[in-house]
C-alpha cells in the first residue's frame, strides 16, 4: 500500500520529466546490481540483492546526470550507454552464478515472500521519498518547469536533479521485492500517467497518483488472491488497465471525448 502510494506520488515527477524510459533503463540496471551483490556476498540473500540493486541504480542514475552536465550529451543518451554496459556486465556474470533460479523472484517480484525487515525498509524508503518530495516541492517544480529560470533564482538545479534521480532509484529498489525489476517501472509511471489524463493541477497529479498507486496495489493483491495469479504482475496489470480506461474515457483528454467534440 505505502509503496504503491509513495511510488504513485513520485510518478508525478516521472511523468513531468517525461522520463518513463529512463525509469525502465534504471530498473534494468538492478539486474546487474543484484548479480554484483551476489558476487560480492557469495550468496543470494535479501540484503546482498537489495544493496546490490540500490548501488547499481544509484550509480547509473546519478552517473547519467553527471555525464549530461556537459550539455553535449543528453541525459537519456548517457543513461542508455551506461545502463546497457551495466546490464551487459550483469548478463556476462550471470551464468557463473549458481543461484539463477531464485533470481526469477527478483525479476518478477514475489510480494508474499516479503519479510518483516523488508517491510520496514520499504516503509522507511517510502516515508523518506514522501517527506523529501513534499519539502522540496517548490524548487523541484521550478526545476522541472523552467530549469534555467530556476537556476537564476538560486535553486541548486543540479542538486535537485541528483536528488530526483536518487529518490527514483530508491523508489525502484523499494518496489523491487513486491513487483520485481522489470515491473517496478509500471508502479512508477502508470499512476500519474493515468491521473494526468484527468487533471491540470500539479498537486493533484501527485496526490492522485499516490492514491491510485495505493488502490492499484491493494486491489492487485486482492484480485491475485482470488484468481490465484502472481501478485506483482496483477498489480501492474490493474494499473495498466486503469490507464487504458482513463485514456479511453477521460472527460478531458480521453480518446472518446476528443472524438465527440
Amino acid at each position: 500500500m505505502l509503496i504503491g502510494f509513495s511510488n504513485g506520488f513520485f510518478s508525478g515527477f516521472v511523468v513531468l520529466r517525461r522520463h518513463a524510459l529512463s525509469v525502465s533503463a534504471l530498473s534494468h540496471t538492478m539486474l546487474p546490481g543484484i548479480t554484483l551483490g551476489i558476487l560480492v556476498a557469495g550468496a543470494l540473500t535479501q540484503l546482498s540483492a537489495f544493496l546490490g540493486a540500490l548501488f547499481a541504480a544509484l550509480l547509473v542514475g546519478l552517473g547519467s546526470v553527471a555525464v549530461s552536465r556537459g550539455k553535449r550529451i543528453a541525459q537519456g543518451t548517457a543513461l542508455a550507454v551506461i545502463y546497457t554496459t551495466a546490464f551487459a556486465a550483469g548478463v556476462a556474470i550471470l551464468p557463473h552464478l549458481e543461484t539463477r533460479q531464485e533470481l526469477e523472484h527478483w525479476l518478477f517480484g514475489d510480494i508474499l515472500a516479503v519479510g518483516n525487515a523488508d517491510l520496514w525498509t520499504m516503509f522507511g524508503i517510502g516515508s523518506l521519498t514522501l517527506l523529501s518530495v513534499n519539502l522540496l516541492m517548490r524548487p523541484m517544480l521550478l526545476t522541472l518547469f523552467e530549469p534555467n529560470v530556476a537556476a537564476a533564482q538560486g535553486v541548486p538545479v543540479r542538486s535537485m536533479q541528483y536528488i530526483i534521480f536518487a529518490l527514483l532509484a530508491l523508489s525502484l529498489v523499494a518496489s523491487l521485492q513486491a513487483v520485481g525489476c522489470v515491473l517496478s517501472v509500471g508502479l512508477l509511471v502508470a499512476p500519474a500517467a493515468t491521473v494526468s489524463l484527468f487533471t491540470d493541477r500539479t498537486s493533484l497529479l501527485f496526490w492522485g497518483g499516490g492514491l491510485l498507486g495505493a488502490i492499484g496495489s491493494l486491489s492487485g493483491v486482492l484480485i491475485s488472491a482470488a484468481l490465484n495469479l502472481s501478485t506483482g504482475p496483477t498489480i501492474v496489470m490493474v494499473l495498466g488497465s486503469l490507464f487504458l480506461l482513463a485514456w479511453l474515457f477521460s472527460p478531458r483528454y480521453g480518446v472518446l471525448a476528443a472524438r465527440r467534440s
Partner: protein
Amino acid sequence: MSEVHHDCCEHHDHHHELVVENLRVTYRRHVALDGIRFATSCGNRVALIGANGAGKSTLIKAIAGLVPRAAGTIRWRGTAVKKWSREFAYLPQREEVDWSFPITVRGLVEMGRYPQAGWWGRFSSSDEDAVDRALEALELVDLRERQIRELSGGQQQRAFLARAIAQEAHVLLLDEPFTGLDRRASSQLGELLDRLAREGRLIIASHHDLRSAPELFDEALLLSTRQVAFGPVAEVLTPELLDRTFAVPAAIE
C-alpha cells in the same frame, strides 16, 4: 487601473536606473555579445532590435541572469546585480515553454511568489493577495483554473506577465513577446505593456517588427553582436543605422 500601486519613479524624485556597462557574453569560445552599454530608467519600454542570431535573446537572458556574463556589470537602482534580482522577471519565448506541463494559470502565477514564500514556507495571506491582484490586473480571474495550453497566445503572455506582477518585479524582460500573436492580441499586449510601463516598470523586449516598433516602444537598442546604437526610437531607427544593424557581418573579425 491605477489602484495597482507601484512605488517607483513618479512617486519619488529620483529615477530608478538600470545601467549596463561593457556587457560581454561568450558561449564556449564563441562571442555572443560584446560591448553592450546603455542606461535607461523605469517607465520606459526598450526594444532590442537585430537580425536573427544578433544576440537579442542572449542579452535578455544575460540581464535576467540566466546566462553567465563573461564581463561587464549591471547596476539597478545603484547596486550591482550579481546574478539574479527578485525585481527582475524573465518571460520566456513562447516556444521555450513546456505548455503541456500540468499547471493551471493560478499555479503559474503562484510560482512568482516562490522567491518570497521561500522553499518551504506556507503561502501567507499577502502571498495569496499578490496572486489574486496579479490575476485581476491582467484579467485572468475567469481563466485561473485553465491549464496553460488551453489559453490563446495573448492570454499565455498575460499569464506570464501576471507571474511577473505577482513577483513584484520592476524590470520585465520579454523575449519576442509579439511573435505569433494575431493583430488584436498584439495591440492588446501593446496597450498592456504601455500601462505597465506607466505604472513605473521598466520593460525590455526583443522585437523584430520594425514597423510597429516606434509605436510600441520608447527606446531602442540596435544589436549585431556588438551594440550598434541606443537611444529614443525615432532617433535610432534611421535607414543608415538599420543598414549597419542588418548588414551581413562580413566586416566583423
